[in-house]
């Protein structure tokens, strides 16, 4: 019977990062993946004859440290490229463009305001950046190393100086609506800058408490490079294999096998769908916490309140994905090339309004979205000369009144294409194939509870030493030998590899 040092459940990017770090320390690692290929939400799939797409768009804050540590460049990760332009689309072609740290398409006073805004936000983002790569210790615990982690955070906040420190404590819980109001008056600029504070989580511009931290998390990128996700997955996979990691795809895990001893319950391996049991010293799960604890492990091994907290993790996905197969390059009014991230969200009120429908299980009347044309950089994704359009659409609640029946899907697809057509007249005639993935589809296709990319809302009560919940927020779990390494752990979702990186450190210690 096969026995490993470590078995990692799931072959998403966090698992692969974790596997690489463990293999670097000469651990004998097995990665088991239910799907045919590695990558999870970052994996590429063919959604129409000859047309490919991945659910995740790009990795914009994948840390340089991981790229360096794992020498991903040697395994085929291309580091060329730049921060993609973010373009707020305007009906009349007066687009707002954010390229690197420069904003154009807005009046001079807004440019000045953006400089002030960016200076401060970047200070805060840089101040927090190291903490995304650390384990957040539990509160109320007085052991010295753990106190040091908080002391260091305290020191870094102090180093901001009195004024900025005070402002940090105030600003950190502001709704993005208020934050934008304090700096800007240009509606399109506000929604463009606010987008990253909202996407993927159940919150609207006017929702307090959670959005600024989410924004700062996404501004923490030290790479200034936007990575193509499937390419990143390939590099991670190649690196892992070269370090001796075994990867078994088409191997769905049914159970985490445990053993009860007088002290505790210990994880000893996994049972695969085939019935085969593979044993290991440690089992690491990159599945979301609900899946890990309730489906793979079983509540009978856990405490009741802990189970309740896992059950109550807010992970109802609100984002749908639309993939369009286009027989030609679409053209957007007033844009020479549709490269970069294109946003259809004319103002924050419209985002708020889209959210208001979602609260009651309805589709948005005016969907707001982020669009990319991945074939511009990677022509191989579609037949020659043809293109893929990929859109993240907010807010489309998983708990839809119609339970996402055919007519609700058709209606949403039409609305999205209608909305795009306003900015890209004639695009409809280019469509040769399409795929709509609602949160319900993401849940069933990618085994993510709630169809939530981030394995749980990015909200203060589900972050830091409370992600996914207290008792399992330091990557270890109440079950000895069972660890978490997925987006449901600190620091959170997006393609960052940081949960996998942090989990590996805890496992090795």
């Amino acid at each position, binding site marked *: 019977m096969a026995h490993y040092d470590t078995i990692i459940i799931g072959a998403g990017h966090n698992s692969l990062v974790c596997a690489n770090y463990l293999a670097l320390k000469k651990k004998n690692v097995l990665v088991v993946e239910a799907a045919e290929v590695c990558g999870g939400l970052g994996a590429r799939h063919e959604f129409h004859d000859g047309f490919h797409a991945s659910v995740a768009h790009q990795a914009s804050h994948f840390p340089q440290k991981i790229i360096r540590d794992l020498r991903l460049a040697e395994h085929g990760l291309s580091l060329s490229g730049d921060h993609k332009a973010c373009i707020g689309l305007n009906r009349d072609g007066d687009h707002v463009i954010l390229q690197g740290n420069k904003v154009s398409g807005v009046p001079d006073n807004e440019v000045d305001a953006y400089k002030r805004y960016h200076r401060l936000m970047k200070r805060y983002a840089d101040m927090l950046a190291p903490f995304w790569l650390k384990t957040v210790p539990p*509160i109320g615990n007085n052991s010295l190393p753990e106190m040091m982690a908080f002391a260091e955070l305290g020191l870094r906040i102090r180093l901001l100086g009195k004024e900025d*420190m*005070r402002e940090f*404590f105030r*600003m950190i819980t502001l709704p993005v609506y208020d934050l934008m109001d304090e700096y800007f008056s240009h509606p399109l600029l506000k929604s463009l800058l606010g987008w990253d504070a909202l996407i993927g989580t159940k919150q609207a511009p006017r929702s307090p*408490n959670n959005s600024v931290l989410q924004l700062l998390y996404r501004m923490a990128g030290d790479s200034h490079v936007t990575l193509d996700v499937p390419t990143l997955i390939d590099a991670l996979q190649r690196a892992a294999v070269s370090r001796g990691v075994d990867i078994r795809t088409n191997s769905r895990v049914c159970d985490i096998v445990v053993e009860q001893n007088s002290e505790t319950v210990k994880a000893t391996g996994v049972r695969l769908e085939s019935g085969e049991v593979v044993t290991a010293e440690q089992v690491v799960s990159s599945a979301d916490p609900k899946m890990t604890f309730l489906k793979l492990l079983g509540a009978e091994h856990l405490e009741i309140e802990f189970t309740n907290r896992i059950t109550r993790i807010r992970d109802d996905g609100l984002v749908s994905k639309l993939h369009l197969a286009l027989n030609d390059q679409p053209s957007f009014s007033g844009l020479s090339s549709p490269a970069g991230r294109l946003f259809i969200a004319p103002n924050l009120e419209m985002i708020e309004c889209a959210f208001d429908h979602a609260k009651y299980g309805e589709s948005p009347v005016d969907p707001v979205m982020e669009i990319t044309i991945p074939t511009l950089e990677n022509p191989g994704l579609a037949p020659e000369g043809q293109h893929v359009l990929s859109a993240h659409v907010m807010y489309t609640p998983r708990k839809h009144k119609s339970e996402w029946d055919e007519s609700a899907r058709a209606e949403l697809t039409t609305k999205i294409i209608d909305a795009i057509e306003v900015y890209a007249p004639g695009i409809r005639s280019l469509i040769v194939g399409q795929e709509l993935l609602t949160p319900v589809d993401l849940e069933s296709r990618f085994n993510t509870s709630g169809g939530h990319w981030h394995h749980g809302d990015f909200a203060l009560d589900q972050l830091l*030493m409370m992600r996914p919940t207290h008792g399992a927020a330091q990557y270890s779990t109440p079950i000895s030998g069972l660890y978490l390494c997925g987006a449901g752990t600190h620091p959170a979702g997006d393609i960052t590899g940081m949960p996998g990186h942090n989990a590996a450190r805890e496992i090795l210690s």
Partner: protein
Amino acid sequence: MKRYDAIVIGAGHNGLTNAAYLAKAGLDVLVVEKNDYIGGAAVSRELHEGWVYSSCSYVCSMMRQSLHRDLDLSRHGLMLVPYLGTVNFDDHGNTLVSYHGEAAAYNELKRHSRHDADAMFRLQADLGRYAQVIRKTLLRTPPDPTSFRIRDIQELLFLAKQFGALGQKELYEYIRFFTLSAADFLDDYFETDIVKATMASAGIIGTALGVYSPGSSYILLHHVMGDIDGSIGAWGLARGGMGAISNALASACKSYGGEIRTNAGVDQIIVKGGRAVGVALSSGEEISANIVVSNLDARRTFTKIMDRDDLPPGIFEKAENFKIRGSSGKVNIALSGLPKFTNVPDNPYANRGGQAFTGSMETMERAYDCWKRGTWSDDPFIESVIPSAWDPTVAPPGQHWMSNFIQYCPAELADGPWTPEKRDQFGQTVVNKIERYSPGFKDLIVHMEVRTPFEIEQEVGLTEGNIFQGELTIDQLLFNRPFPGYAQYRMPVKNMYMCGSSTHPGGGVSSACGANAAREILMDLRRPNTVPEDDCYDD
């Protein structure tokens, strides 16, 4: 010309409390009030002959009993009477009465859900725990987390000790609670919408947040952390209307030698050489003082009665960014008889407290959506109280006055400014909703007064008619209230202070802001502190 030791601007309950304590410490104090009556939003006015309206605030639970006792307010005419159970009405004709007795309360909840009846015990214990920690901070000055002064560090340690005493698990729960929405918080306890809606309504009163907005669970706590005689969460009526509180405070203030002038609106705080030296009244008269204390909200203080040039850079902008959003309306009604409500048992315990027309979580949230779009909902959340069922002094015998508080009502309408016609339409919306639950209600109406945020601002002076003098979100609480760096009642101009609800601990008729400000002033004057730091009830 006479020079006062201190001038307090605005004779609301916090201004009067502040003045009373300053006078008690021997200062020569003048309170100036723009209206021809005192009380601000804690006021009783005979707006229809024979009826005394508490035209703005209408119930009380946060009034600190140590201040009540210390200022001897009972001798000055104040009596707070707890009132019994509120009835909640949902969209489908169901009711839920919040009884006081445990057996009745349990059985009533059980009519709706056995699970929720059980879960309520736990919610009450948890809210009690959360309330106890926060209550200890009410009569204390928030520490400045950026400061290394001994007092700030001591206060930070005091806070840390209070939170530490919760134990590790409850500390996590407290952090969660503080940041959640009322809906998410209550989902952890209850299954039925009527029970959730009953509890969630406290999370939206007075605020520009919805039941689904993160942060609304703190607002919920803000409304249940008060107490009457140590019973946390109980609400009371002031005998004689809310004005009885202000009148008692004014009487106490005068008994210590303080002066109060009505019809004396302040146009300008006079600043010379970076120091506040007095005020200029709208009549043109100037009064000088060593100290000026503003009981007005932060926005109004810095943008309306101060010269921008007198302020350090940035303060004016902070005041403009200070979130003080009008979101509530008030309809005061004189009734010829006691209204009867459908599906409510006809007895004094169930039918004499208040009525909360909550509808459902969705109804309340949709009303909030309307507010965001600059209009009011056809189906608003209304919290009503009929004080005359308890208080024989506010309406003729057999007749009644009903206070109706409406959430939400925008300060500015999307289709232009408020007009008397729109105001009356708003009032009609409210009356129509009540009529749905109390057929024949309209026929009982003798007189009615409608207040939108516009009227509240015009009369009382609260910016946008915000009842808390500023939103109670984390960015404006504790050491962030009103602005970071100015949470200790001292303002950026020397010898100038604030004592209104724009300061810690925020809105509610608590007198705590005024008392805390007095403590800081006395400290700066090197006078002995005479302001209690603790409530007299031991938990």
